[in-house]
């Protein structure tokens, strides 16, 4: 059960971030940080099915995390976070079409290892 929850957290986290990125790229770049621009962005988000789908996936991930925390310790949730970094980089390259070269792969790997080390 624990590992199923870890899998759900990693997958939904990854799916949520990929959908949010695709949705926000579809919506267009936020040009500046003025309050009016940000309010317009938020209004558009609520009509953006990709970002809404991303929110739903992140909500599932959050509730799976709560369930996991209720049956085990927080350190058990760490592998899910670490795996997400690598999985999301993979999907960023092959689904979102980002130019992921060795520096970004190394960065994602170092961060994933660092997150695991921080849990000790």
């Amino acid at each position, binding site marked *: 059960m624990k590992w199923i929850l870890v899998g759900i957290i990693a997958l939904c986290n990854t799916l949520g*971030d*990929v959908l*949010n*990125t*695709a949705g*926000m*790229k*579809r*919506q*267009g*770049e*936020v040009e*500046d*940080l003025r309050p009016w621009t*940000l309010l317009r*962005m*938020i209004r558009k*988000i609520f009509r953006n*099915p*990709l*970002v809404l789908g991303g929110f739903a996936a992140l909500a599932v991930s959050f509730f799976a995390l709560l369930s996991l925390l209720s049956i085990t310790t927080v350190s058990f949730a760490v592998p899910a976070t670490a795996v997400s*970094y690598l999985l*999301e*980089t993979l999907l*960023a*390259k092959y*689904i*979102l*079409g*980002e*130019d*992921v*070269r060795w*520096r*970004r792969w*190394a*960065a*994602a*790997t*170092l*961060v994933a*290892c*660092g*997150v*695991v*080390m*921080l*849990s*000790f």
Partner: protein
Amino acid sequence: MSLQDRPSLVMQTFVRPTDNQTQNGRRGRKTHALVLLVIVTNVFGNVFLSRGMHQVGRIVSASPFDYVRAFANPWTTLGIVILVVWIFSDLALLSRADLSFVLPVTASAYVLVALLGHFFLHDHISWERWMGILLITGGVVLAEETPTRTTTGPPEHLIPERLL
């Protein structure tokens, strides 16, 4: 062209930024300002929320009213408000930068939380955690050396026709 003219030509070519370079510079600064906002709101949102929830005490209940009670705590409310700002600034950042850039760069929040705990709350940091801080910092530095965005336009092939 005389030799005397050359320095001005060199200045024009290599020193004076073109309109494109100035735009790229401004674009980069705005993106990095957003990165900073995402990291700071993530760190302080979580720290305040954690402080508030510790004051409220353990909630193990099926009743939503017990969770609403947590909102009465000012630290919890402040934490949630800051985390809402974090969510939207993260989305604004994802509209301007690659996911594979944003992920490692914003992981510096982990480092900041650990260091804040160490210097202000005198939390002990084991050698394993120092190693973790070093590894994450290395990852952040490497990602910072890559361009913030490598794609143009939305990834259309991902989006079903009916959603466009």
